[in-house]
């Protein structure tokens, strides 16, 4: 599977950073699957959690950040976090959630938060620690967007509470949870085409 495009001249960027077709389509497919999960989550889970516990619902906000950690762990290419998070966001909009167009903004900052961490280790380290930090980065991105857009009138202690819950949730659910998820996927043998399989 690793020689999917043998005929292409090697004039472009090096093999470790160039996106093959299989990288693009697998990340997009993962993102589509997460987008469908997001839609369900947005419409059936989040409004109730928010209605019953606001702002405590941020304890489960890490679910939205899973693509930003899972996709880079699978394909190990620059840009995977932003690409996956944006595609998942667009799919949830196309299905119809309550945040619509705005998730293009939140998807971008969430992906960028995780992307910065993977870029900082030059896309060479994909340990659980880096995954947890990437989760935290995505969580900070999420807070950076959500506070001004939806919680600007909240009193300061509640805003701080949102950031703390958001980052904790991002580290556990998206970071460590995403790392465990990729390990489980790898154990099924589905990632033979990717470097993560070493």
């Amino acid at each position, binding site marked *: 599977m690793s020689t999917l495009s043998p005929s292409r001249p090697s004039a472009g960027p090096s093999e470790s950073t160039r996106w093959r077709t299989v990288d693009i*389509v697998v990340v997009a497919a*993962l993102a589509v699957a997460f987008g469908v999960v997001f839609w369900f989550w947005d419409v059936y889970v989040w409004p109730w959690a928010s209605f019953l516990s*606001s702002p405590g619902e941020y304890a489960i906000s890490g679910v939205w950040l899973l693509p930003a950690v899972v996709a880079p762990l699978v394909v190990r290419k620059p840009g995977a976090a932003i690409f996956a998070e944006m595609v998942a966001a667009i799919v949830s909009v196309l299905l119809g959630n309550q945040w619509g167009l705005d998730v293009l903004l939140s998807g971008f900052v969430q992906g960028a938060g995780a992307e910065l961490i993977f870029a900082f280790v030059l896309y060479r380290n994909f340990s659980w620690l880096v995954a947890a930090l990437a989760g935290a980065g995505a969580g900070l991105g999420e807070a950076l967007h959500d506070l001004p857009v939806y919680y600007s009138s*909240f009193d300061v202690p509640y805003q701080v509470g949102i950031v703390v819950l958001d980052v904790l949730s991002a580290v556990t659910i998206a970071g460590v949870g995403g790392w465990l998820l990729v390990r489980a996927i790898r154990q099924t043998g*589905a990632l033979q085409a990717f470097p993560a399989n070493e």
Partner: protein
Amino acid sequence: MSLLPAPLAPVRPAFLTRVTPVARLTAGMTWLVAAIVTLDPAVPTRLVVAAVVALVLWSGLPLRRIPGRLAPLGLAILSLTVFSILLSGSNADRSIAALVELGPIRITGPAVSAGLAIGIRVVVIGLTTLLVFGPSDPTRLADSLVQQWHAPDRFAYGTLAALRVAPILAGDWAVISAARRLRGIQPRGAVGRTRDLGDRLLVMLVSSIRRAERLALAMDARGFDSGIRRTHFRELRVGWRDLLTVAVALAVAAAALVLPR
């Protein structure tokens, strides 16, 4: 069997169906920004009126299906508005006169006004989204992103290929559930059910990855990654409609922000 909502598509030709997707996206973003930058409820209210007018007159969308499509907004708006009012910082400010004082609960005018602004903001976002994504399908969006904004074509069309798989996921889910029942797996209690949900999600992700790998192989067999410069099958033309849409949206956003109350 499909668990997913049917996509909303235009039922008649209309002005916005002939505007390119990225022009609608640019126009929509101006309203989103205008609704976000202020806590004055008058601004998003004006934008809601403008969006409803545009939906009725120029979107070509089936109007009877729109309330159902916007239903998910209901609870979200209610809880966001109520909690924005209850947890507002201005309630603690003793120099602002209270509208309501009930034991520990104190609610001020600025808190109510900001809470309403944030609630109506969500309505603006919902309606604007229908105007941006409603009048055309994802294929046209990908064409538009590649031809007008020079998005990398392999990423745009690779994603479009993966998107075709979305309706199959619901069927996958049913098969996975049936297979687990057949094996006699019966989760008990909240923890058991959550674990079971996680297991089924894992199987769904693995099957999507395997399907995507086969899809990529088929695409490469047809020269998807040949490196030869791609030409466009459906050429999009930018015209006066695109310029007019962006200009009018910008003017409406500016007017909504600066008009006196």
